[in-house]
């Protein structure tokens, strides 16, 4: 029924050590937990199995929750990203920031911040184009949702911009 602690010779030895002597000879020692502690041998505390299970289940739930997190802009879920390897829109970098950062740092050898080129400002024609595209998309959406009043307004605005009479100039 097991061995007794070599030190106190009372409690059951549960810590089994192999010390390497200065001459390279291995010496086995068997101690009880208390004596081992006194010698400064640190032990991993035993975790009750139910606590471990609980943690495990919670981790699973966290993963499940993470996989279901969804970007409101594009509808991409983190789970979908994991299987695709690609994101759905720039906003995903904000929505999944805490989940992505460890991946990003690993992929970039610890790099976590951009230190390179910063884009210059778009000139007026660039801004105008972006605006035209935005309006066009809004128009599509308005037509789709049968909001014809809004669509008419957007159409007028687009016509104005195309004619170059926009107030940006």
């Amino acid at each position: 029924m097991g061995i007794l602690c070599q030190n106190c010779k009372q409690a059951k030895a549960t810590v089994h050590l192999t010390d390497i002597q200065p001459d390279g000879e291995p010496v086995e020692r068997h101690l009880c937990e208390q004596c081992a502690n006194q010698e400064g041998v640190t032990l991993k505390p035993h975790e009750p199995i139910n606590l471990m299970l609980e943690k495990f289940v919670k981790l699973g739930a966290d993963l499940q929750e993470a996989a279901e997190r969804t970007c409101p802009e594009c509808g991409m879920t983190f789970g979908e990203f994991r299987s695709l390897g690609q994101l759905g829109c720039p906003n995903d970098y904000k929505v999944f920031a805490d989940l992505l950062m460890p991946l990003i740092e690993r992929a970039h050898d610890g790099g976590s911040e951009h230190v390179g080129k910063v884009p210059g400002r778009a000139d007026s024609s660039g801004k105008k184009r972006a605006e035209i595209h935005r309006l066009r998309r809004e128009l599509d959406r308005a037509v789709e949702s049968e909001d014809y009043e809004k669509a008419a307004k957007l159409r007028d605005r687009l016509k104005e911009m195309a004619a170059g009479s926009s107030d940006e100039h």
Partner: protein
Amino acid sequence: MSIDDLTSTVGEWLRGTGPMSDVVISSRIRLARNIRNYHFLTKASPDEQKEIYRCLVDAIAETGLDQNSFFVDMEEIDDLDRQVLVERHLVSREHAEREGSRGVAISSSETRALMINEEDHLRMQVLRSGLQLESLWDEINEIDDKLSAKVEFAFDEKLGYLTACPTNIGTGMRVSVMLHLPALKITGEIEKVLRAAKDLRLAVRGLFGEGTEAVGDFYQVSNQTTLGRSEEEIVDEFATRIIPRIVEYEKAAREALSHQRAVQLDDKVWRAYGILENARTMASDETLFFLSHVRMGVSMGRFHAVDLNTINELFLQIQPAHLQKLRGGVLNGEQRSIARAEFLRKRLGGNSHN
């Protein structure tokens, strides 16, 4: 200019000129960009994708980047033509195989290709033969400046340029150098080089990039990290440290071979030439393998039956799509192998006794 015109020539990047061109085939830099306020292509509807396409086509025209170049609508050309562009490294395989609105603006010298709707909305790339990374960076930086005046790119102060795949964020820059390392392969030292490259966080791939084997002793070395270092740092590391060192190793291996195993070396070159010049059926990998040995002989000044330019041309023209284009029709695998052998016989020496 059309795709048919391309097939009988080689692009600038395969011309076999430029610094260190005995070992360095070509240099390439590409930048990945996405337009602000649009979804990445994984979540863009076909209409949105079309809009992104139009927006970038307009921007390219407005900056004058369409001059001396031609534009290819990838939806309008057939598989064979798309494959020709892949073989010339003007578009990626991924771009050729995707669906929906997409295209590419190619400069007539084939040193610049602006891919629209690849994995990212815009992938710009510049190519040169030999090791010419600094001038490539200046060129692509200027192209990027011009385009960012016309379209606003998705950018985050902390994460830099935002890309569909998080492995490209930051600079969005991939520097790639295509190397011909036959001597390191023969001496077996290539494994050491590949391990060192891995330690330096470099990707080493084959002739056609991602997922391709290093056939014909061609190795494409590129950076993997794009965040946390500036464009200039990445370029500088490649141009002054990484590549010159690998070139040095290859040259030392060539030196050693020509001193210690000259007969074996010449035997490899001549055998390769003999097969290329006489075989009746040749698969493309096997052709690359033998062309590689001949190229080594030529660039070491030991073999003069053919010049480097012809060899470089052959590397391209024996590729499946080029071969079919030159023969004027679609061929199956077996027909291609026969056509390839015929083509090689004609180009090398032109043995009439067949």
